[in-house]
């Protein structure tokens, strides 16, 4: 296969949250897109689906550089266009066009259709001569199925479908190689929509166009796309061949999205069915009051930042000595040692508005089960990791329920699923946490509290200094946990290692255990 026309690498976009700006305070940045990567081969159509707030529109705009990405790379036909200035971009603009949802607002009512379509041809320097540009406009109008007779008309004389054809004609007039189309058939009648979809398909084949097709409508994407990308909360949840994703979605959120589309067939049980949730509810961080334990370092510290960026209203940052002071006034430091029953009870009183509890605090002695040289690692690990988490759940489940529901997230480890020879007592304590989490999930099932178990692999923190690579970055782990919560996955396996191990255990358990033993 030839090299992709468009490559996006680890694209991040943050925009200031204006609703939280003050006179002397810079508005905090809110993450719109987090680590998006995609490849679009020549002549293919990539569908991007997601609900409002998923970041799909922002991604489209970032690709054509209407938004400046915060980090990451955009390669167009092998050229890095991420940081090109507007003058340098002009050379590429004629090759990459965008079509918007509402053609009405992007068509100047005083101009004739021909001039509107010819305009990018002139401004992007495809033609210098006005006549030649108008000629290209005629051709584009013919291709868009309107006929060049429309060139003499004005926008208000056209129907919605015809206006969208003008939008398409304007985009193809410069003979681009890439078109980003954002919700261009929503709001059109079914009979008009079907015609526009057929037109796009023809253009793709005849002109060898590559398209990024953004839509909230899964069915429309199914008709057009070669590949599809499902987005949620600024991240890619699932990506793949369109037939594969729609027939066998791997991700709970994708399943739920597909199931929610009403097909025109009679299905008496459809309204009451809720597949994809498997006893867990989807939880969005936006607007939540979150308590995180163990925030003095490592993953806990990263959690605080990620929760703020995801729009949490308040974050209780618990540390053993209560010194979690933070520049953002949404962060409230809390002194909380999870091994102290008194401190847990006190925290449940002072943090009475908590809606999401993240049990992250844990310890790790890296010791074997049968050697007890210094302290009894097994007792200490069980006390903090298991009993600490359990006592937090006991204290906060009623608090969260009383606040109208929310979530509990228990950070276990992939070691909960497989016991490693050198750190047996840690693995046992994590397995206990995992088992306990499943039990709590069952007990809270009907009480509006979603319970998540997180099983990360090796994470690059102080605690794992002695651990051999590969180790995942804490920020990636945390971001995947938040997406998992939004998607309503009960057990979250963030990072490649965790996914690999979990998949391996499912496929061939003895082989996986043997491999893990070798890893240490």
């Amino acid at each position, binding site marked *: 296969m030839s090299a992709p026309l468009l490559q996006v690498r680890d694209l991040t976009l943050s925009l200031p949250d204006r609703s939280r700006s003050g006179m002397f305070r810079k508005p905090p940045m809110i993450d719109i897109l987090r680590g998006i990567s995609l490849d679009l081969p020549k002549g293919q159509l990539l569908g991007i689906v997601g609900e409002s707030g998923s970041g799909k529109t922002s991604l489209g705009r970032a690709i054509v550089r209407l938004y400046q990405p915060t980090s990451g790379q955009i390669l167009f036909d092998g050229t890095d266009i991420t940081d090109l200035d507007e003058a340098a971009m002009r050379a590429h603009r004629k090759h990459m066009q965008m079509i918007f949802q509402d053609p009405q607002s992007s068509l100047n009512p005083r101009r004739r259709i021909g001039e509107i379509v010819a305009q990018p041809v002139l401004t992007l320097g495809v033609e210098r001569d006005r006549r030649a540009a108008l000629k290209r406009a005629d051709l584009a109008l013919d291709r868009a199925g309107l006929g060049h007779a429309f060139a003499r008309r004005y926008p208000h004389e056209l129907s919605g479908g015809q206006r969208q054809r003008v939008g398409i004609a304007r985009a193809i007039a410069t003979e681009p190689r890439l078109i980003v189309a954002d919700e261009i058939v929503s709001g059109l009648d079914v009979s008009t929509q079907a015609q526009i979809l057929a037109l796009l398909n023809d253009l793709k084949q005849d002109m060898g166009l590559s398209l990024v097709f953004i839509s909230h409508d899964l069915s429309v994407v199914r008709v057009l796309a070669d590949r599809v990308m499902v987005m949620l909360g600024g991240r890619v949840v699932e990506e793949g061949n369109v037939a594969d994703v729609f027939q066998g979605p791997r991700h709970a959120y994708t399943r*739920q999205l597909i199931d929610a589309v*009403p097909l*025109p067939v009679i299905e008496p049980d459809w309204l009451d069915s809720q597949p994809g949730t498997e006893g867990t509810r989807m939880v969005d961080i936006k607007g939540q009051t979150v308590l995180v334990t163990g925030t003095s370092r490592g993953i806990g510290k990263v959690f605080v930042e990620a929760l703020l960026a995801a729009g949490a209203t308040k974050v209780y940052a618990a540390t053993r000595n209560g010194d979690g002071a933070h520049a953002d006034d949404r962060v409230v430091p809390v002194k909380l040692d999870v091994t102290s029953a008194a401190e847990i009870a006190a925290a449940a009183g002072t943090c009475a508005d908590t809606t999401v509890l993240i049990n992250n605090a844990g310890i790790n002695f890296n010791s074997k089960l049968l050697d007890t040289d210094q302290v009894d690692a097994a007792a200490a690990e069980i006390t903090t990791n298991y009993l600490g988490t359990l006592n937090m759940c006991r204290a906060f489940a009623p608090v969260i329920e009383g606040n109208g529901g929310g979530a509990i997230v228990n950070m276990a480890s992939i070691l909960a699923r497989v016991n490693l020879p050198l750190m047996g007592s840690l693995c046992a304590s994590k397995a206990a946490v995992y088992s306990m989490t499943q039990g709590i999930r069952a007990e809270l099932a009907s009480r509006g509290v979603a319970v998540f178990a997180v099983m990360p692999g090796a994470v690059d923190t102080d605690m794992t200094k002695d651990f051999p690579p590969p180790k995942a970055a804490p920020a990636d782990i945390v971001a995947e946990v938040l997406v998992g919560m939004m998607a309503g996955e009960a057990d979250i396996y963030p990072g490649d290692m965790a996914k690999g191990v979990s998949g391996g255990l499912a496929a061939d358990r003895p082989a996986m255990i043997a491999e893990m033993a070798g890893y240490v």
Partner: protein
Amino acid sequence: MSPILDIHDLRVSLRRGAHLVRDVSLSVDAGEVHGLVGESGAGKTMIAKAVLGILPDAIRISGGSALFRSDDLLQLPPKRLRSLLGREIALIPQDPLTGLNPARRISAQMTDMLRHHLGQSRGEARANALRLLQEVQIRDPEQVLDRYPHELSGGMRQRVLIAIAFSAEPSLIVADEPTTALDVTVQKQILRLIRQMQERHGTAVLFVTHDLGVVAKVCHRVTVLHTGQVVEQGDIADIMSARATPFTRALMDATPRYDQPADALHPVPEHIHQELRATARRFDEANP
């Protein structure tokens, strides 16, 4: 059993003369969800607005009747109509963004009718509003009552609007594309809620939509419209079957489906549109 709403030969026209709804008849029984389906310009919203007496100034009713029980809604004096509206007939609008007044608290918008038309005291009305919010499964109903619309999500706002519509226990609700502006997962929740509420209260619903998928999931009977004329009317099972008329079937074939590949999609053949437009023209010539 006599229908709750019986529309007979309803004709709606521009003040200048052109017809928008051409002698449409349909009836909605108690406890029934009746779908009114069509593309833009088919006249579905005009029929709904005519029933509610909220047609724009430039549009008038030029014939027919709309019997609600024994009252013709099209002939009632304004005062009598106003006393029926709200108490007996309610509306769920399309856009939860503009359906609630941005300048008034949810409590004010939920209680004004209970207080002014049903004569409830402030406390009674608030208690009723709370109960309704619980019924439409809103968490923290106390808090929500004291909020302004912009502080709620789209799905929450639509739940509030549904609660308002059901607040006086009306016998007929007109739902005008109530889920078109919502995300697909929220749409499913709202459709479920409308059906639950409607079944629990035995309410008749006139459900206006352009989406055949939504129709298949919530309606008992359906009227399909094109250019202000009834193309087809019947039980949902018939409409969704091969027995349907060519236009309805063509509409189904033009609706993309995630479970079917691209080549299953066929635009509505132009001759079907043309034939229906010709019928409309003949109607206009016979009824200038």
